[in-house]
């Protein structure tokens, strides 16, 4: 009886511990959402934390006064472009590295993931300035590809390694060239891996701050830069800032929920299954 009771107490404590931790980790998000529905006066009054008007004024204002739609579109163009081009360059490379055990190249890709991005920021700025490409989508997409492509390769190598080799061979017996077999047979059965790596690559591009800080301008400003500019005003519009934060994080959180099963495996390069 007492052992049973002891066990029950332990189970209860475990649940309290886990859910309390979860609450603490979600608190900043709740705080962000709460503040995004408050007026400036309500935010400045700390005696009534839960006093909210619950209207969408902050959301309306960031679209009207700060033209947020432009930044959302910019982030989408850069994210989509760099993910798509990252796939086009990355998938064949990952396939070849997996298939032919080109470990030297695998290492190069790993190094590309390790090297601090800031070490090529100055040359990029100089070169793109000379080419008059600052504030163009091309420059942003090229720079973000250095995030998306190595990541896609990194995730896809173990994935391709797990595919049966015979498939490519039987396609070749049927008269396919290797690129033909790759496109018609291997890629279609790699759907789950490609979708996961694309979602994560898109999230990395969407979240990227440092490259856009240097290479984006008024025309191509992406969301992270746009919300960062919010705090350079002396009087911070907190409600607007939090509404903007909700808008920038919401798509990422939704994508993450879709790809949740693969995120840990993706972030650790397949070395850990989530």
């Amino acid at each position, binding site marked *: 009886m007492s052992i049973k009771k002891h066990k029950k107490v332990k189970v209860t404590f475990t649940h309290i511990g886990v859910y309390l931790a979860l609450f603490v980790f*979600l608190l900043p998000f709740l705080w962000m959402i709460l503040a995004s529905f408050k007026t400036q006066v309500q935010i400045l009054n700390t005696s009534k934390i839960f006093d909210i008007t619950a209207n969408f004024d902050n959301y309306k204002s960031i679209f009207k006064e700060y033209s947020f739609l432009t930044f959302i579109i910019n982030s989408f163009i850069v994210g989509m472009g760099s993910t798509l081009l990252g796939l086009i360059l990355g998938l064949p490379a990952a396939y070849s590295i997996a298939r032919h055990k080109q470990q030297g190249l695998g290492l190069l890709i790993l190094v590309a993931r390790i090297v*601090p991005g800031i*070490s090529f920021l100055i040359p990029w700025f100089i070169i793109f300035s000379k080419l008059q490409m600052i504030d163009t989508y091309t420059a942003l997409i090229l720079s973000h590809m250095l995030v998306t492509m190595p990541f896609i390769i990194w995730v896809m190598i173990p994935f391709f390694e797990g595919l049966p080799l015979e498939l490519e061979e039987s396609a070749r017996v049927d008269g396919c060239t290797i690129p033909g077999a790759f496109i018609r047979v291997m890629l279609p059965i790699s759907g789950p891996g490609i979708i996961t790596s694309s979602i994560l690559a898109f999230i990395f591009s969407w979240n990227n701050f440092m490259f856009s800080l240097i290479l984006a301008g008024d025309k191509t400003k992406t969301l992270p830069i746009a919300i960062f500019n919010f705090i350079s005003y002396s009087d911070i519009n907190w409600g607007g800032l939090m509404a903007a*934060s909700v808008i920038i994080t919401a798509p990422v959180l939704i994508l993450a929920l879709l790809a949740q099963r693969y995120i840990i495996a993706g972030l650790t390069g397949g070395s850990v299954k989530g």
Partner: protein
Amino acid sequence: MSNWIDRHIKWVFTMPAVIFVGLMMVMPVGYTLWLSFHEWSMSNIDPPVWVALENYKNLFQDELFIKSLWLMFYFTIAAVATETVLGVGLAILMNQHIVGKGIVKTLFLLPMVATPVAVGLIWVLIYEPNIGIANVFLQKLGLPVQEWLTSQDLVMPSLIVIDVWEWTPMIALIVLAGLVSLPKDPFEAAMIDGASTWQIFRKITLPLLKPTLYSAILLRMIDALKTFDIIYATTQGGPGTSSQTINIYGYVLGFQYFKIGQASALLMIFFVIVLSISIFTILLRKRAGVNL
């Protein structure tokens, strides 16, 4: 033609990616190295002037550089150590029978995928001395309020808290995946022998978890050394230079003061530090019998 492609498929498939990495990464790092031996302010009229090792010499006499190095290590070690301890604890809690575990695991993913700049700005509001919830909380407890991100003494711990919030769940989920895959036998044997929970943890769980922990810590460390977004979005290295890690200092030297040579020298040193620490830990991990 298609025959030629098939025979050289190794190179046809990899060349575009390799050329891209060469153009966008290897060449620029080489250019940074070249610039680090010159003095230049990015002006079109005055070209770069060769100064040999002058920039490097100056850096090692620059107090701010030494400080930024120390801040980088302080941030990395404090953040990763805290995340590891909390993450392992959380993972062990979650390795029990939990109602709604799937949803809990999913929700724990959110801090690490949320846009870092937005995360930083949310924390700026949380830490805001007059209206932030951090001080409201302290007041409710009857404790003195703090300046957090605008205090020279508290800015680094405050930033570390943000990093811990962002990344503890990742360590926890990696460790949890490791725990799930551990063999059951040693635990059962220890239970029968009457080992205490703490003994089981120290003598069985931790040693078996070592490879997983190595991977988690390595990944976290490489990223923690390079932390930029969170710091730049919240403090830009301030107040003064109290949170100016080497990454931020490099950015400030290059893009605010346009001391291109000096910044390039700093970035080369940073590059070498990050790369050698990464390679060193990867080798260490290999010796511990873990594959990449």
